[in-house]
C-alpha cells in the first residue's frame, strides 16, 4: 500500500513533466497553465483554511498585487521580472501582515470579513488609478526570460509554472509534517490547548495568513507574464470566493486536494460558460449559480472534499520509525525534593458578581502529589485555569518557584515548566497519537517554517519524535502510537494527554480529572506512573473525583466547596473531617 501511494505520486509528477512533450492540443496546455496558477493560490488556502482553521476571501486581491506589481514595474521601468517578484512579495507581505495583525486578535470570523472588504477595496482601487490603466488595465507585458530562453509560449511557460506548483505542494507537505505544522493544526481547534503547549497562536495564525498571501502573490506574478495583460476583473471578490471554492471542493485539509479542486473548478467553469448561456439564451456569468449551490452541497454532504475519497483508497503509510538513535532532548533541571514549586496565595476569581475562587491558598512541593477535590462547581477547574494562565486572576498571587506567574499568558507559564491536561480532552483527532504527543514537546524544539520546508529540521524532529515515543512507552501506549488520535476511546485519549504533558518535561504537572473514563486496570497503571513521577521529584496537582485513586495516591488533599478552601490535610485527616462529609453528602437536620 505504501509503495502504491508513492508510485501514484511519481506517476503524477512524471505526467505533469511529460504533458507538454505529448502531442496534446494547445488548448490543453493553456488549461493546465490556468490550473497551475489556481493551484498555487489554493495550496495557500489549504494551509490557511484546512490546517489553521482560518479563511480568506481576499486571495484574489493578493494575486492582483503580484500581477500589477509585475506589470507596472516591467512596463514603465523596464525592471526584470526576476526582480519584480520580490517587490510584489514585499508588498504582499506588508499588506497581509497588517490585515492579519489587525484581525487575528479577535475571533476567527473577523479575518474573512476583513478580507472581503480588502478584496473589494483593492478591486476598486486598481480600477480607478490612472497609472494602472483604470478598468482597462495594462497591456503588453513581456514574457519571462529564463537564462536567455523566452517563456513566451504556453509550453515553455508551463515548465516554470508547474515547477513552482510542485515546489509549493511539496513545501506545504513538508511544513505540515513538522513542529510548526503540528502547532498550526493545533490552532484550528481553538487556542487554549495550543497555548498550553507553548505555541504563540497569534503569531502562528499571522504566519499562516502571510504564507497563503505570498503563494497567491507568486501566482499573480506568473499570471501577469502568462496573460501578458492585466485588468482588475480577475482579482475581484468573486474570484477570491472561487479560490476558496477550489480548496473546499478538492479537500481543504489536503495539499493535493488543492490541485484536484483547481482542476475540477477550471474544467467545470469552462463547460458551464459554454453551456449555460446557450440554455439561458443570453450571456452572463451564470456559472456562479452552479458554483454556489455546489459549494453548499459539498459542505453539507462531503465536507472533506474529493481528496478524502482518494485518501480513503490510498491511506497514508505508517510513519517509518527512524529516530531510534536520535540523542535524547536536554532535561530540565528539577527543583530539589521538598521545595515549594507552586504557591497559590489568596487567589481570587470573580465572574461578574459570582466569586468562583474565593481567596484560595495552597502549595505544591517537588516530589509531592497534591489532590484538589470538591463537589461539582467547587471552583477546581477555575483554580486550574488561574494557575495555567487561561484566566487572569482578579486578585492574589500565583508563584512558581517564587516567581509570580499570575499575569503571564499560558504559553509563558508552559515555558517555565508547567504542563497540564484538560478536563475535556483537547487533541487533534486527525493526527496520530505520536504526533499529538510530540506537540507537547513543542517548546523543546526551535525550528520554524523555513527549516521545515528545507528539511533542515530533521535532526531536531527525530529528537522530538523519540521523546514522544518515550513518553508513550512510559504511559503504556507505545503500541498505539501510529493510530489516529480521533480513533481512541476516551480512556486512552486521557492517557495520551498525560504523555503529551510529560513530553514538555515539566517540573509541575497539572492533571484535570485524568481518571475519568479510565478502566480499573488503566487507573492502576496511571497511579503507578504518577508514583514514579513523584519519586523522580515532579510536583503534581491532581483534580479528581475518584476517591479511591486520590486517597491511595496523594500526599496531601485540599478540599474546595463553593469556591472556598474548606480544609487541607493528609488523606486520613480529610476523610475523618465532618465538614468534608457535609460538603459531599449534605448535613443531617
Amino acid at each position, binding site marked *: 500500500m505504501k509503495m502504491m501511494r508513492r508510485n501514484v505520486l511519481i506517476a503524477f509528477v512524471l505526467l505533469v513533466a511529460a504533458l507538454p512533450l505529448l502531442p496534446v492540443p494547445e488548448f490543453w496546455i493553456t488549461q493546465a497553465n490556468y490550473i497551475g496558477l489556481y493551484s498555487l493560490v489554493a495550496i495557500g488556502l489549504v494551509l490557511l*483554511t484546512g490546517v489553521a*482553521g*482560518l*479563511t480568506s*476571501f481576499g486571495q484574489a486581491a493578493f494575486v492582483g498585487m503580484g500581477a500589477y506589481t509585475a506589470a507596472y514595474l516591467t512596463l514603465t521601468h523596464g525592471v526584470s521580472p526576476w526582480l519584480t517578484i520580490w517587490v510584489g512579495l514585499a508588498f504582499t507581505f506588508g499588506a497581509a501582515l*497588517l*490585515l492579519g495583525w*489587525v*484581525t487575528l*486578535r*479577535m*475571533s*476567527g*470570523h*473577523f479575518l*474573512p*470579513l*476583513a478580507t*472581503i*472588504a*480588502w478584496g*473589494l*477595496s483593492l478591486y*476598486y*482601487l486598481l480600477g*480607478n488609478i490612472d497609472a494602472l490603466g483604470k478598468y482597462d488595465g495594462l497591456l503588453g507585458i513581456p514574457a519571462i526570460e529564463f537564462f536567455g530562453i523566452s517563456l513566451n509560449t504556453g509550453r515553455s511557460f508551463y515548465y516554470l509554472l508547474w515547477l513552482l506548483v510542485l515546489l509549493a505542494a511539496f513545501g506545504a507537505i513538508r511544513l505540515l509534517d513538522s513542529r510548526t505544522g503540528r502547532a498550526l493544526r493545533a490552532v*484550528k*481547534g*481553538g*487556542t*487554549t490547548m495550543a497555548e498550553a503547549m507553548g505555541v504563540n497562536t497569534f503569531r502562528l495564525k499571522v504566519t499562516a495568513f502571510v504564507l497563503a498571501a505570498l503563494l497567491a502573490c507568486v501566482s499573480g506574478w506568473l499570471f501577469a507574464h502568462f496573460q501578458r495583460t492585466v485588468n482588475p476583473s480577475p482579482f475581484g471578490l*468573486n474570484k477570491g*470566493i472561487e479560490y*476558496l*471554492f477550489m480548496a*473546499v471542493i478538492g479537500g481543504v485539509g489536503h495539499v493535493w486536494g488543492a490541485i484536484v479542486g483547481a482542476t475540477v473548478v477550471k474544467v467545470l467553469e469552462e463547460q458551464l460558460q459554454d453551456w449555460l448561456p446557450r440554455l*439561458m439564451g*443570453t450571456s*452572463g*456569468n*451564470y*456559472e*456562479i*449559480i*452552479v*458554483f*454556489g*449551490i*455546489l*459549494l*453548499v452541497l459539498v*459542505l*453539507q454532504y462531503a*465536507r472533506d472534499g474529493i481528496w478524502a475519497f482518494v485518501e480513503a483508497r490510498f491511506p497514508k503509510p505508517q510513519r517509518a520509525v527512524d529516530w531510534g538513535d536520535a540523542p535524547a532532548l536536554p532535561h530540565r533541571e528539577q527543583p530539589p525534593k521538598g521545595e515549594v514549586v507552586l504557591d497559590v496565595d489568596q487567589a481570587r476569581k470573580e465572574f461578574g458578581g459570582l466569586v468562583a475562587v474565593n481567596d484560595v491558598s495552597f502549595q505544591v512541593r517537588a516530589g509531592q502529589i497534591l489532590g484538589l477535590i470538591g463537589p461539582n462547581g467547587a471552583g477546581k477547574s477555575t483554580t486550574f485555569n488561574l494557575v495555567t494562565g487561561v484566566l487572569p486572576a482578579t486578585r492574589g498571587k500565583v508563584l512558581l518557584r517564587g516567581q509570580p506567574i499570575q499575569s503571564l499568558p499560558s504559553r509563558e507559564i508552559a515555558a517555565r515548566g508547567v504542563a497540564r491536561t484538560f478536563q475535556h480532552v483537547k487533541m487533534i483527532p486527525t493526527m496520530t497519537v505520536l504526533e499529538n504527543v510530540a506537540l507537547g514537546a513543542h517548546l523543546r524544539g526551535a525550528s520554524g517554517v523555513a527549516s521545515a520546508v528545507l528539511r533542515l529540521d530533521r535532526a531536531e524532529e527525530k529528537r522530538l519524535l523519540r521523546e514522544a515515543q518515550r513518553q508513550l512507552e512510559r504511559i503504556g501506549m507505545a503500541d498505539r502510537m501510529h493510530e489516529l488520535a480521533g480513533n481512541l476511546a476516551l480512556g486512552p485519549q486521557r492517557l495520551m494527554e498525560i504523555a503529551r504533558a510529560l513530553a514538555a518535561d515539566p517540573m509541575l504537572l497539572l492533571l484535570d480529572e485524568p481518571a475519568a473514563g479510565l478502566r480499573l486496570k488503566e487507573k492502576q497503571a496511571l497511579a503507578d506512573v504518577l508514583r514514579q513521577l513523584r519519586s523522580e521529584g515532579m510536583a503534581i496537582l491532581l483534580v479528581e473525583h475518584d476517591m479511591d485513586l486520590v486517597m491511595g495516591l496523594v500526599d496531601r488533599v485540599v478540599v474546595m466547596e463553593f469556591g472556598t478552601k474548606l480544609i487541607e490535610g493528609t488523606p486520613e485527616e480529610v476523610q475523618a473531617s465532618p465538614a468534608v462529609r457535609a460538603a459531599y453528602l449534605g448535613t443531617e437536620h
Partner: protein
Amino acid sequence: MDFTIASILTLDGVTNGAIYALLALATVLVFAVTRVIFIPQGEFVAYGALTLALLQLGQVPGTVWLLLVMAVVASVLDAVAGLRRGLPAAAVATGALKSLAFPVAVCAVAWWAAPRQLPLLFQSLLTLAIVTPLGPLVYRLAYEKLADATVLVLLIVSVGTHFALTGLGLVFFGAEGFRNPSFWDSRFTAGPLTLTGQTLIIFMVSIALIVALYLFFERTLRGKALRATAVNRLGARLMGISTSGAGQLSFGLAAFMGALSGLLIGPTTTMFYDSGFLIGLKGFVAAIFGALASYPAAALGAVFVGLIESFGSFWASAFKEVIVFTLIIPVLLWRSFQHGHHDEEE
C-alpha cells in the same frame, strides 16, 4: 465646501445610513441567533427592489418561481425525512401541504395581480410577501443541516448562497438596471435643504421598524425566545425553544428587512441584480462597529458609514467604495484593542 453642501451631504449620508442601519440590525440578529454571518443579506435588498420593478412593468418576477421551487424542495426534503423517521404518510402529507400553502397562495396572487398593474402600495406589500418567505427557506435548505458547524463553515455556506442568489438575480432581472417610482413625490424645503417625500419615508419606516423590533424583543414571547437562543442555544433548546424555528424566524426577519430596504432605496438609486451585495456589505461594516453583537453600536455605525460614504463621494467619488471598505481596518483595530482576546472553542 460650504455649509450648504455639508448639510446636503449630511442629509444624504444619514438617509443612506438609515437603510444601512436596518441591514446592520438584521446582520446582528442573524449572527446572534444562528452564528451565521449572513453575506446574502444584500441579495434580498436587490430582490425587493427589482421584484417591485418587474411588478411595475406588469411582469411576473422570477422570484415568484424561486419561492415556489424552494418551497417544494423544502417540503419534499421534509416529507422524505418524515417518512424515514416512520411518520404516517397522512401526517407527512398534511405537513407538506401546510408548509406549501403560503408560498403557493403568494405565487397565485402574484400571477393574478402582475398583469393588472395594481396600485404601488399593493405591489409593495406583494413584494414583501414574495421575498420574506425566501429567508426561512434559505435557512432550511442551506444552513439548517449545518446548524452545529463552526462559524467558519457557516460563513463559507453564506458565500456559496450569495453566489447562487446573485446568479439567480441575473436570470430573473437581467443585466439592466431599474429605478422605482417614488412612494411620495412631495418636496419640502428647510433652509438650504430639500427634503423629498421619499427621504421622509425612509426615516419614518426605519425608525418605526427599529421601535417595532425593540418591542418585539422586549415584549413578546417569540422575541424573548430569539434572545434566549442568542445567549445560549442549548439552554434555549432545553427550555423548549426550537433552535430551528428561531433560525427560520431570524432569517425571515432578515429577509423582510432586506426587502423593505430594497423598497425604500429603489426610488433613490438605480438598482442592478448585483447592487444589493455592496449595499448589504455596508450594513456589514456597520455591524462590525458593534462586533456583530451590539444593536445600538451597529445602528450608530450605519449612520457613520452613510456619512463617510456621502462625504467620500464628494471629495473622491471614484474612490468612494475604497474609502468605505477600507474603513473596516481601523474599526477592527479599534475593536481588537478594546476587547482584546476573544476566542471561540470548537
